[in-house]
């Protein structure tokens, strides 16, 4: 049965995509007995949550053939605005959540407008946004962190564990749950909805889409706004983890998120990519960082080894795919 064969082939394919990740996990488990333990696995997942959410957001933009350098500082700006609403204005928690997502979506829309309407290359448009948002976060907060001590339950957003309450012994932090939720919804949007279809189509051949009578500008702006909203969730997660909005944070997070996306097999040229791949990419990065730390590798060697393993992991993936496309 060709359909079934295709399906099982896809499953094998998917499993193989995990190969680098699994190899890393096995390697570290053998090297240190402290690595493969529930608490450490939870720590790794928790460490993935913020970067993972950012990476999921930027995956959308990269699939359109764009790039977003502003996600790191946008995350911070969303956290800051949440702090303003919750701590300074004393609003209820739910409004804080909406502020984070709304701020992200609004800023994403602005980036999208720069790119789609004003035809500014995404690299420049989002570089400008990155700088503006970085400055704005410092201006709004007066360069001091905003703490969420007056909002009970705020730290529960990322640090609590709904799963742990239901299944004792599996203290999965809510932050990770939210990451999986965001990833699942985004994957659904990409795979099943018009928005997702246009995301791929824009990255594949924008001019052909425009000449099909699609209002490409509007769709592109929608995609940037959606990505911004997801980054807003990232801002919520990080401020919940730190119980504060740190205005100087954020620079450099964009590179890490983009790296996770590319390690996950999404092409910077646009047109192809998966959320699952991005998740795996983000996990590879966290496992690597955590594992090397657990092994107490000297920090300067950690960077060297991380660099080398990233290259090897992507190379292995490359070989696997080349074989798959031939066989």
């Amino acid at each position: 049965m060709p359909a079934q064969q295709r399906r099982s082939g896809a499953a094998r394919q998917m499993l193989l995509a995990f190969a680098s990740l699994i190899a890393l996990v096995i390697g570290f488990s053998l090297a240190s007995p402290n690595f493969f333990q529930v608490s450490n696995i939870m720590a790794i997942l928790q460490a993935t949550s913020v970067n993972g959410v950012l990476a999921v957001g930027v995956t959308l933009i990269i699939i359109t053939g764009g790039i977003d350098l502003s996600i790191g500082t946008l995350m911070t700006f969303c956290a800051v605005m949440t702090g303003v609403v919750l701590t300074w204005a004393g609003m209820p928690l739910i409004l804080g959540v909406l502020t984070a997502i709304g701020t992200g979506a609004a800023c994403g829309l602005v980036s999208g407008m720069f790119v789609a309407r004003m035809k500014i290359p995404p690299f420049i448009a989002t570089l400008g946004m990155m700088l503006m948002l970085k400055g704005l976060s410092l201006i709004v907060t007066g360069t001091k962190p905003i703490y969420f001590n007056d909002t009970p339950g705020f730290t529960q957003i990322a640090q609590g564990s709904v799963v742990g309450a239901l299944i004792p012994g599996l203290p999965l932090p809510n932050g990770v749950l939210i990451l999986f939720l965001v990833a699942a919804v985004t994957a659904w949007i990409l795979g099943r909805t018009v928005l997702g279809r246009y995301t791929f189509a824009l990255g594949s051949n924008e001019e052909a889409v425009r000449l099909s009578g699609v209002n490409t500008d509007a769709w592109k702006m929608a995609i940037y706004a959606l990505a911004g909203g997801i980054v807003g969730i990232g801002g919520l997660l990080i401020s919940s983890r730190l119980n504060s909005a740190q205005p100087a944070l954020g620079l450099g997070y964009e590179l890490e998120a983009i790296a996770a996306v590319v390690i996950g097999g999404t092409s910077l040229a646009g047109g192809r990519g998966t959320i699952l791949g991005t998740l795996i990419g983000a996990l590879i990065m966290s496992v690597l960082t955590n594992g090397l730390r657990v092994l107490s590798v000297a920090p300067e060697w950690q960077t060297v080894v991380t660099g080398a393993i990233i290259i090897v992991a992507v190379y292995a993936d490359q070989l696997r795919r080349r074989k798959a496309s031939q066989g």
Partner: protein
Amino acid sequence: MSDLVRMQGIDKRFPGVHALRAVDFDLRAGEVHALMGENGAGKSTLMKCLSGVYQPDGGRILIDGAAVALPNPRAAQDLGIGIIHQELALMRDLNVAQNIWIGREPRLSLGRIDEARLNADAAAIFRGMNVAMDPRAPVAALTIARQQMVEIAKALSFRSRVLIMDEPTAALNDSEIAELFTIIRRLRAEGVGIIYISHKMDEIRRIADRVTVMRDGATVGTVQAAETPIAQIIAMMVGRELVDEPVAIPDLSAAECALELRGITRGREVRDVSFSLKRGEILGFAGLMGAGRTELARAIFGAEPPESGEIIVHGRPVTIRSPADAVRAGIGYLSEDRKHYGLALGMDVRANIALASLARYTDRLGRIDEQELAAVSNRYIDMLSIRTPHDRQEVRLLSGGNQQKVVIAKWLLRDCDILIFDEPTRGIDVGAKAEIHRLLADLAGQGKAIIVISSELPELLRLSHRIAVMCEGRLTGILPGGASQERIMALATRREGMAAE
């Protein structure tokens, strides 16, 4: 005459496709050997094996009687095998001369390029081809037809002993084709062996010595061109006889006007064009290369909105600033450049067919009804006999002609009232072409208004109820269907200065 090239038992598989099954083919020095077959028969694949792009899974290739290995394009070039690829393989950011001599730049000391000689050599080739072309023009600014000229010039520059031409004339019009044939005859006289692929049947008679027909990845047979009736070749290709139906011009005096243009102007390419089109009418557009037909179509469609003039659809004036406006007004446009303007090559057949009509298959949550889409796209795959393993195959893996059919399917599915087809049968085989002609006639019968731009006069004559002729951006006249080729050519060459006379 000895065999220059002999390919024996060539086999090639792609995932899900057995593209070549033990194909035999040979070429002698000083002959033009036409390779024919339906879309997806395996012609391009066979030629890619011969030019070192693909490695065959089985069989062998002999040059001058000796078995050779062709691990890469360079090896083939070194053996004197040159190829014009079906899909243009140009560097769009480089200029014409740079494209022609890429990899073989004349050098001065220090790795410098002798730019003057590069340009002079390129200019010399074009002079030999009798084509006016500025070697310094950037390729991205050229129309498809002129890009094709660059590809031909590049292939000629190799002075190969074996020259493969994979649909070189798909984008050319009659006078350019005539020039190309002069070149081919000259090369043949010099002893070059030429493999010639085309879907234009009339060319076979004019240029080919022998014809090999392929079907479904296998050779059907090789015949002498001069002795074999075209009908027989077609029968070998498609496995049945085709009958040409002459155009029946319907009486449209009562039909309402679907589209009217008044004084449409855009730059120098489109100047003051006015005409009207009735429901149920097929209006053909003839003209020489660069006459501005494509520009006119793009202006109507809003791809590059007109600077002045009025567009009236179904009696109501509409403003069209973008293709989205045009499609909303019920106008569809099939571009002549499928690769750049028609297809999302990395996406599958189904997604491409649905690209212009997604809204119709989407619920309020934005979910796409994949099941419905699968049914619809399979219907079009059957209707246009698109050769693809399944509707989830990436379009870039289809043969050129099948890609073209996917674009056609996209616009058929969109179901516009007014359809503009720019070179709709480019690269499409005879059988499918007849199919598409029938389809266009049917669409007109259903009351749609259709504009067909084609560089093939016979096609226009077979299809059009009226024929509009353009020259240098102006509409020089509209002739009734079935007008003589002479009258069309007269209008197509009536320049502005002459018009004043």
